[in-house]
C-alpha cells in the first residue's frame, strides 16, 4: 500500500499509557512508517502547538476527559478558529456517555471511537482509523493558511 503524503496526527491524551498504546498501534500498522504522531498532554498544550507554533496536523485525535481544558472545550475553541476548524477531529475516549457523544457531534467532530477494554480490540479500532484517514483527501497546511482560497 502506498500513500502520497505522510499522515500527520496530533494526539491529545493526558494518560501516558494511552499514548504508548496509540504509538504502539501506529508502529505495528502497515502504514506506520508514513504516520507521524505529535503528542500533547492536554488541550492547552495542543492549542499552543496549533496556534503559536503553527503546527497544522492532518487530523486531531483527542480524549474527552482531560485536565485544564477538557475535550469538549477544546473542540469548541477549535471550531471557532478560522483555520483550525478545517482539521478533522476524532474523539477517542472511554466515555460511552450519550450526552458527550451528541455534544461532540454537534460541535462538529469527524468521528467518535470508544476505547474498548482489550488492547487487541483497541489495536483493531485504531488501525482502522489510521487506514481510513490514510485514504482520505486531507486539507494541506499551506492550503488552509493561504489567503487566496
Amino acid at each position, binding site marked *: 500500500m502506498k500513500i502520497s503524503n505522510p499522515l500527520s496526527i496530533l494526539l491529545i491524551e493526558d494518560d501516558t*499509557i*494511552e499514548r504508548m498504546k496509540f504509538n504502539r498501534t501506529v508502529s505495528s500498522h502497515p502504514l506506520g512508517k508514513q504516520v507521524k504522531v505529535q503528542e500533547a498532554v492536554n488541550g492547552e498544550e495542543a492549542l499552543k502547538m496549533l496556534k503559536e507554533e503553527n503546527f497544522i496536523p492532518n487530523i486531531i485525535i483527542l480524549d474527552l476527559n482531560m485536565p485544564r481544558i477538557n475535550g469538549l472545550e477544546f473542540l469548541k475553541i477549535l471550531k471557532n478558529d478560522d483555520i483550525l476548524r478545517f482539521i478533522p477531529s476524532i474523539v477517542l475516549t472511554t466515555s*460511552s*456517555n450519550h450526552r458527550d457523544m451528541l455534544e461532540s457531534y454537534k460541535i462538529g467532530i469527524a468521528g467518535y471511537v470508544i476505547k*474498548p*477494554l482489550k*488492547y487487541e480490540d*483497541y489495536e483493531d479500532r485504531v488501525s482502522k482509523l489510521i487506514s481510513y484517514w490514510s485514504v482520505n483527501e486531507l486539507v494541506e497546511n499551506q492550503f488552509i493558511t493561504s489567503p487566496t482560497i
Partner: protein
Amino acid sequence: MKKPEIPQNEGARIAELESYSILDSLSEDDYDAITALASEICETPISLISLVDQNRQWFKSHHGLASSETPKDYSFCAHAINEPDDVFIIEDSRLDARFSDNPLVTEEPYVIFYAGVPLVTNNGFPLGTLCVIDNKPNLLSNGQIKSLRILANQVIKLMELRKNEKLLESTLNDVRQQNEELNDYAHIISHDLKSPIRNIEALVSWLQEDYKELLDDKGKDTVGLIKANLEKMDSLIEGILKYATIDKKHSLKQKVNLSILLPEILQIMNIPEHCTINVQDKLPEIAGDKFKLHQVFQNLIDNAIKYNDKPKCMINIGFKPLDNGFEFYVEDNGPGIESQFHEKIFQMFQRLDHTVESTGIGLSLVKKIISHSGGKIRVESTVGKGSTFYFTIP
C-alpha cells in the same frame, strides 16, 4: 385618623406572608368564588381577600372593587389583624374617630361598613382578612358572621394548599437536579475506573506478546487470569453504570415490534451451537423504550445460556396478553433456582455462583427497568429442570 398599629413580630409575620409567594400573583377563580360568596351571604357590594404587606394591603381577590391594593395606613384590615381571634366590625366608619377622615371613607369607594375576619395561618400569623364592605351603615347577623368565618377558613386552606404545591414543586426540582448530578457522577466514576483497567489490560497484553518466550505455561495462565479478572471488573463497572443511569424520565416511549426486535437481539448475541432458542410467532407490538426492552430480553436470554448445564440448551420465549398489557416469559432448561433465592436473585450484587462472568447486576437491572415501566417480574423454577422468568409490561 389613626394609623393601624404595627403588629408584634411584624418581621416574622411578613416572612410568613412571603413564604406563600402569593403577593402580586394572578387572580384565581377559587379565591374569587369565595369573595363572591361572602358578598352574597353578607349582602354587601364589596368583598376582599386582603393581605397586609409592609406598606400596602394587596388583594388576592377583589369583588366589587376595581383597585388591587391600597396604602397600609388607610387599611381597615391592618387594624383587624391586630385582634387575630376576633371579627373586626365597624358599623359606621363616619362615626369612628379612627376612620372618619380616612380617604377610603370620605372618597371612593366610601367604606362605611366594614367586617373582616383575620386570615390566621397554622403558625398563628395573621396575614390579612377576608372582609365585606358596604357604602352605607350595616350589620351582620350571627349566621352571616359565622359564614364569613367559615369562608375565611377556606381561604387559609387554599393558601396552605398553594404553599404545599410550591414546596412540592421545588422539592421535585431538587430531586431532578440531584438525579442529573448523580447521573453525571456515575459516568465520571465509571470513566475514572475504566481508564486504569484499560491501561492494565494493555500492559498485560504487551507482557504476553513481548515476553511470550520467557513466560512458561504457569506464567501464561497467570496472565490469562489477570485478563479474565479485568474483564469482570469492566463488566461490573459497565453494569453499575447502566443500573445507575436507568431512569424513568428519559425513557423514550415508542412503538416497538417485538417480532422484529427479538431476532435483532438474537443476531447480535453469541448463541452457542448447543443452544436452541424458540421464539413464539407473532410477538406483539408494544409501547416502550426499545433500548431498555433490548436490555431486558438480552439479559434474560444471556442468563439462560450462561448458566445452562444441559448438553442441549433449550430456551423458549413467548407471551400471553393480559387485560392491560402483556406477560412475557423466557424459559430455560438450566439448573433451576431454589425457591429461597427467588427474591434474592433480583437484588444488586447477589449471585448464586462465582463464575467469572457473573456480576450480580443483570437481573437487578432487568427488575429496575421493568418496575420503572410499571411491570412486575418473577421466576418459577424446578431445581434440575429449569427456570422461567415472567415479566409484565403494561
